[in-house]
C-alpha cells in the first residue's frame, strides 16, 4: 500500500498552500485533485489579496500569473436604470502586502500546485477522493474505492464549499441553503487595449467593481466586475435561500444583471467565452465546521473561510493563509511527539489566529447577518438614487436644498425612522 505523511485533498489555493508548506517542512505529501488539472474545476469572482501569498512565496510576483493589479476600487448602487458609484483610486492599493490582483483560476491554481510539486509534493489529478479511509474508527488516510486507498498520518481537507469529507469526518452536518450562496460568473473577452481605454487603466493595471441593490433584483447578494488582461469577469453572488424561495434561476438573474445599462457600458462589444457557477460559503464564522480532529485538518472554503462584508470579498487569501497554518500545525504536532492526535493538532487554531484568519472572520461575524437585511438590496439603494437624482437634476422646476431633500426622503421612506437609524448603526458596526 502507498503511504505518505500527509494527503491533501483538493489542489485549489488552500490545498496547494498546505501541500507546499508540508513538503517544505519535510512531510512526504500527496496532493490529490479531482479535475484533470488544478483550477479547471475552480471558480471565484476574480481577485486575490496578496498578503498571504507574500508569506508563502515571498517572490511570488516574479512568475505568478497575475492578470492585472487592482488600482481602482468601485462600489455602485444600482436601481433598474441608474447607478450611484463611489470610486477609490490610490497608488497605495498596489503596494507590498496590500496589493491585490485579478487572476484566472486555471492559471493561478496550476502555478501554485507547481510550486508545491517543486517543493517535493506529489500531485495526482483526475481522482475524486470519496471518503476518509478508517481502521478501527481512526482516520488512516483517504479512500477512492473499497480496494483503493492511500495511507497517511494526516489528511488535509481542501475540497471547497461542498466538501463531502468534512461531513464524512463528522466535523459538520449537511449544508443548509442559508449557509451557502450561489456564485455565477461570465468571462467576457475584450482586447487588452479596449479594456485599458475603457476603464482608464495602464498596462498591468486593473479595476474592481462591486454592485449592490438592483444587481441581484432585490435578492440578497451582489454583483462584481473585475478586469483581467483581455477578459472581464462579471457575475453575481446570490443567496441560494432567496433563489429557491422566489423560484428564480440564477442564469436568468445573471442575464438581467449583464444587460443593466451600468454593466453594458463596460462590457459592450465583448464576447462571452465562459460561464461558470459555484457554491460560496456565506455564513463565515457562523458556519465553520470543527476545524480539526485526530488525523484531520480543514482548510479554505471547506472550513467556511470566506469574508463578505459588503465591500470586500475575500476567499483565496484566507485559503492560502489557512493552508500555511495547517502546515505549521502539522509541524508542531510532529515536534510535540505522539503524532497527529486531536490534542497535538489543536495548535491549528493558534496558527490561524496568528495569521489573522480566525480573527478577521470573527470580527466580521455579524456582517453576514447584516447582509441578510433585505432593505439593503431594495429600499436603501432606491432612496440613495432618488436623493442623487434630486441633487443633480436641473430642469428649471426649482431647486431644493440638500437638507430638505434628505428630510423629505427619510420621512417618505417605507421604513420607520427608528428602524433606519438602527440599520445604519448595525451596518457601521458589522462592516
Amino acid at each position: 500500500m502507498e503511504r505518505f505523511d500527509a494527503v491533501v485533498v483538493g489542489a485549489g489555493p488552500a490545498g496547494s498552500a498546505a501541500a507546499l508548506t508540508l513538503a517544505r517542512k519535510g512531510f512526504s505529501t500527496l496532493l490529490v485533485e479531482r479535475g484533470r488539472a488544478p483550477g479547471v474545476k475552480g471558480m471565484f469572482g476574480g481577485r486575490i489579496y496578496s498578503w498571504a501569498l507574500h508569506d508563502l512565496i515571498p517572490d511570488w510576483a516574479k512568475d505568478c500569473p497575475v492578470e492585472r493589479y487592482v488600482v481602482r476600487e468601485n462600489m455602485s448602487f444600482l436601481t433598474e436604470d441608474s447607478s450611484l458609484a463611489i470610486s477609490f483610486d490610490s497608488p497605495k492599493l498596489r503596494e507590498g502586502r496590500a496589493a491585490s490582483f485579478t487572476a484566472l483560476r486555471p492559471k493561478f491554481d496550476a502555478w501554485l500546485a507547481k510550486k508545491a510539486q517543486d517543493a517535493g509534493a506529489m500531485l495526482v489529478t483526475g481522482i475524486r477522493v470519496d471518503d476518509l479511509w478508517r481502521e478501527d474508527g481512526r482516520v488512516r488516510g483517504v479512500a477512492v474505492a473499497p480496494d483503493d486507498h492511500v495511507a497517511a498520518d494526516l489528511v488535509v481537507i481542501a475540497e471547497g464549499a461542498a466538501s463531502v469529507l468534512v461531513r464524512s469526518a463528522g466535523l459538520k452536518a449537511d449544508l443548509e441553503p442559508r449557509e451557502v450562496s450561489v456564485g455565477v460568473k461570465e468571462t467576457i473577452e475584450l482586447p487588452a487595449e479596449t479594456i485599458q481605454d475603457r476603464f482608464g487603466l495602464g498596462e498591468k493595471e486593473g479595476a474592481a467593481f462591486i454592485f449592490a441593490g438592483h444587481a441581484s433584483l432585490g435578492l440578497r447578494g451582489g454583483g462584481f466586475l473585475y478586469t483581467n488582461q483581455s477578459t472581464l469577469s462579471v457575475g453575481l453572488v446570490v443567496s441560494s435561500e432567496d433563489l429557491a424561495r422566489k423560484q428564480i434561476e440564477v442564469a436568468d438573474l445573471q442575464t438581467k444583471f449583464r444587460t443593466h445599462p451600468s454593466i453594458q457600458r463596460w462590457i459592450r462589444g465583448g464576447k462571452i467565452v465562459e460561464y461558470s457557477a459555484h457554491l460560496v460559503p456565506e455564513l463565515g464564522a457562523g458556519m465553520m465546521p470543527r476545524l480539526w480532529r485526530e488525523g484531520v485538518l480543514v482548510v479554505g472554503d471547506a472550513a467556511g473561510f470566506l469574508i463578505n462584508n459588503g465591500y470586500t470579498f475575500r476567499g483565496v487569501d484566507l485559503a492560502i493563509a489557512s493552508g500555511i497554518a495547517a502546515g505549521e500545525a502539522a509541524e508542531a504536532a510532529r515536534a510535540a511527539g505522539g503524532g497527529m492526535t486531536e490534542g497535538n493538532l489543536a495548535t491549528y487554531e493558534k496558527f490561524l489566529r496568528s495569521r489573522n484568519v480566525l480573527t478577521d472572520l470573527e470580527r466580521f461575524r455579524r456582517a453576514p447577518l447584516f447582509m441578510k437585511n433585505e432593505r439593503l438590496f431594495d429600499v436603501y439603494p432606491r432612496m440613495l438614487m432618488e436623493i442623487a437624482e434630486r441633487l443633480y437634476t436641473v430642469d428649471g422646476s426649482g431647486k431644493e436644498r440638500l437638507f430638505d431633500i434628505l428630510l423629505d426622503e427619510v420621512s417618505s421612506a417605507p421604513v420607520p425612522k427608528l428602524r433606519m437609524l438602527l440599520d445604519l448603526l448595525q451596518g457601521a458596526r458589522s462592516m
Partner: protein
Amino acid sequence: MSVSAPAVRPMRIIVCIKQVPKAQELQVDPVTQTLKRVGVPSEINPPDANALEIALTLKDRHGAEVVVLSMGPTSFDESLERAVAMGADRSVLLTDRILGGSDTVPTAYALSETIQKIGGYDLILCGEETTDASTGHVGPGIAGHLDLPQLTYVSEVRLADGKVRARRTAEDGTEWWETAMPSLCTVNFGCNKPRSPTLTGKVRVKRGGVVVHWSCADVGIDPKKVGLLNSPTIVAKVDTVKLPPREGRIFTGEAKEAVRALLEALIRDKVIAP
C-alpha cells in the same frame, strides 16, 4: 521459446497496446492524406484497452503479473503509464529510430522478439485491430513468430485447469474454445468497459520506474528486418470520403407535435420503419 509457469511464480500475461490519436479527434492532413499524429490528443487503442481489461480481470480472479508492451516513440509512455495506473504491474516500450516506418510485418517480428526477452509468459493478449490502421495483422503475426495457438475476436477469457477457455465472436454466433497455455488471444473492441486509473496506480506511476525503454540492440532485433525499407506494404493512395450534405431541419412547436412531425418525416424518408 517459452517456458510454462512453475507453481511458485504467478501467471504472466503480456498485453500488447498501441497509442493512437483519439477517435473523436481524428484529423487527416489535407496534403499528405495521412493521419495527423502530432498535437492530437492520444489514447490507448480502444480494443487494446479491452484486452487490458480482460488481463486485469484475470489478475483480480487468479492473481497474475500483467506486463504491458508497446512499440513506438517515447510519447507512448503516456499510454503505458495509464495502463499501470489502471492496474498493470509494469510496462516495456520498444523504442528505436530504426523501427520508424515499420508496417505490420516488422512490427509483429519486433514485438515477438521483445516478448521472448520478457519471457515466462502464459498468455498474450492483443486488441483485434487498431483504430488508426485497422489491419488486424499484428496479433496473429506474433502468434506465428512464437508458434503459439491463437484465438481471434475473443470477448471473454476464463482460466481453468491450466487451460484458456475463450468466447469467440463468429459471424453467426459465439463459440467457446479451449486451448493450452501459453497462447495468444486478440480481443474484440467494446467487449467490456475498461476500468479507470486508481489513486494507488497513479501514485505508483508518479513514483517512477514503471516504464522500461528497450532499443533494438537491447532486445537483439535484426536491423535488417525492420523499418520502412523492410516493410512490404506500399500505400498507393489514400482518399478521404466526403460526407453527403445533410438537410438539417429543426422541428419546432409543442414537444409532442414536434416529435410526431419528426417521426413522420423519418418514416417518409425511410430512415426508420413505421
